[in-house]
């Protein structure tokens, strides 16, 4: 909603913008235009805001790789304005088809760039990272392959891919066998290996009393001993139940994950195996609610890989990449480490410092005036890597930037969180504790490209670097 102030739009638009007036309260847009419309809404000029916006736009021009991009944005903004004024979508149709053509060209260019990079024998990871941080186009197996490469799952030399992949997948299958079998299956396999004769005698058709074998106190299903296979199995059953419950709630709007089709069930089962295995291999952390959300985008990307072999091994691949993705932030899940230097509270205070370094006014307002501490909103943002704040498509785009950021995933994550705060600054400044908390816990829809650009442009918090050893 345009608050009655004239937006300063650069000349580039020329005639499209001439004679333009802002009208209040015209609920706007539809479809793709709406996104940009939203952008305008949030960044409404409180003097500072509009300056910042045109600033970033200008920066945009300089930093953007493609020439067309700013032009596209301007045009889309203009269309949004038109909509707001109730002018008929004739322009929009014209505009948006023009826009979509340009966007398709851009996407194709990027796609061929990435494909070129991946097809090299020795892949230049830095270059790939740079391209990936501007967003990986949909389609094909680009995203899956690029993520695997940058996370370190696939080695940079193409020749080693086959070997690495098959080794890792075999390792995963073996782990599954070792850790995910029920005790009765385990016992059965042990016996089959054993092949004792007395068993075959008992099975012959001679009638009579059955032979009793004495067993130790650990070896029966009701055993309460810690070392008992059965006891451990039942402990993990509880975790498995929790995992199942959470998986039912993962992305319920997507057919891929939810619903009773064999499709959805198969995916949930694979994810269940991954999470269960992870909890067994990390007894200190086990399973924490939310890990299912972090796994979901990974698993989704890998199973929608157009390469058949990759898609069918999505479970194994997503397990390894899940571990890699969480490698520096897994401590966030451990409650005991909350107050330590690697725990979540320390990370949250870094977020606070980052905000302070970039926008002291907002920081002051949040910390002192409205007393909204980062714990209240940031905990979920950071531990779950923003998976609960946006829809899946946006998450994939954000993760492109997170994973390929030269600062590292955690650093980039803090930047994105800070950018999220900055982008709703005006609403935050005018809100009290309750309103701000509500806003931040139900983060509004926003243009992701803009958000990521803001995150990119933040001044780093140098105090952290001075203190850390």
């Amino acid at each position: 909603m345009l608050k009655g102030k004239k937006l300063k739009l650069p000349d580039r638009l020329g005639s499209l913008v001439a004679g333009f007036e802002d009208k209040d309260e015209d609920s706007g847009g539809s479809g793709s235009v709406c996104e940009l419309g939203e952008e305008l809404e949030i960044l409404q000029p409180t003097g500072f805001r509009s300056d910042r916006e045109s600033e970033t736009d200008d920066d945009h021009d300089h930093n953007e790789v493609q020439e067309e991009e700013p032009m596209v944005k301007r045009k889309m903004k203009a269309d949004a304005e038109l909509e707001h004024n109730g002018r008929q979508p004739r322009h929009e149709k014209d505009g948006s088809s023009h826009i979509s053509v340009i966007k398709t060209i851009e996407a194709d260019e990027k796609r061929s760039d990435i494909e070129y990079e991946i097809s090299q024998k020795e892949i230049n990871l830095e270059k790939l990272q740079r391209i990936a941080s501007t967003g990986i186009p949909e389609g094909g197996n680009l995203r899956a392959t690029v993520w695997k490469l940058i996370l370190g799952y696939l080695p940079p030399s193409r020749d080693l891919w086959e070997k690495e992949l098959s080794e890792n997948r075999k390792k995963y299958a073996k782990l599954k066998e070792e850790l995910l079998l029920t005790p009765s299956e385990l016992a059965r396999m042990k016996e089959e290996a054993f092949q004792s004769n007395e068993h075959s005698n008992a099975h012959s058709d001679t009638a009579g009393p059955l032979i009793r074998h004495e067993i130790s106190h650990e070896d029966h299903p009701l055993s309460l001993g810690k070392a008992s296979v059965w006891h451990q199995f039942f402990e993990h059953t509880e975790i498995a139940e929790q995992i199942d419950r959470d998986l039912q709630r993962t992305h319920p709007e997507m057919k891929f994950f939810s619903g009773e089709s064999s499709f959805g069930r198969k995916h949930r089962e694979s994810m269940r195996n991954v999470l269960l295995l992870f909890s067994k291999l990390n007894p200190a952390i086990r399973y924490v609610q939310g890990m299912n959300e972090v796994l979901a985008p990974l698993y989704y990307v890998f199973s929608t890989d157009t390469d058949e072999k990759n898609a069918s091994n999505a479970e194994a691949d997503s397990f390894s990449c899940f571990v890699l993705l969480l490698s520096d932030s897994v401590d966030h899940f451990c409650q005991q480490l909350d107050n330590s230097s690697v725990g979540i509270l320390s990370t949250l205070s870094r977020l606070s410092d980052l905000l302070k370094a970039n926008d002291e006014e907002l920081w002051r307002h949040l910390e002192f005036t409205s007393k909204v501490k980062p714990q209240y909103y940031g905990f979920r943002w950071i531990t779950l890597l923003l998976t609960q704040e946006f829809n899946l498509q946006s998450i994939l785009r954000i993760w492109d930037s997170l994973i390929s950021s030269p600062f590292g995933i955690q650093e980039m994550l803090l930047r994105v969180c800070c950018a999220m705060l900055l982008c709703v600054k005006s609403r935050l400044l005018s809100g009290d504790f309750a309103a701000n908390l509500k806003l931040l816990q139900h983060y509004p829809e926003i243009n992701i490209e803009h958000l990521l650009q803001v995150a990119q442009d933040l001044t780093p918090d140098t105090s952290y670097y001075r203190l850390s050893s």
Partner: protein
Amino acid sequence: MVLVLALGDLHIPHRAADLPPKFKSMLVPGKIQHIICTGNLCIKEVQDYLKTLCPDLHITRGEYDEDTRYPETKTLTIGQFKLGLCHGHQVIPWGDLDSLAMLQRQLDVDILVTGHTHQFTAYKHEGGVVINPGSATGAYSSITYDVNPSFVLMDIDGLRVVVYVYELIDGEVKVDKIDFKKTPATTHSAH
């Protein structure tokens, strides 16, 4: 992997006050999928207690049960196995293998679980397997006063059953294991 608890002849409150504490500590909810009870509980409170361990509870009537609505015999299918349940006081002579085998053929089950003798037994004959879980409280029977508390836990896994026998001997829980497989050919009716 399906865990089935088989027990019976508790005779609470007439002949015994409760299950032995060592048994009670082992029987926790969440592990067992089915409970089959041969009978002689005798009161409703015992049924309620068993219900808390597992919602799927099957009981047949023993001669001292206060609830007269339990059936005389019951059959159920768990996995690949057909199980039959009967208290056993109806089968004379009590505890006689051949008579029980007749009952088993009548019910057409792979595993017949009966009680009444308060002694654990497990027999195999051509028709199948007969298991008597004994008395879970160690209550005296019509035949003898010398009874060790015992019950049975069956782990049904495909065509294989592992029977865990829990017995309280001299205050200590002893666990034994019995294995048997069902060959697909043994599902034949009486010849």
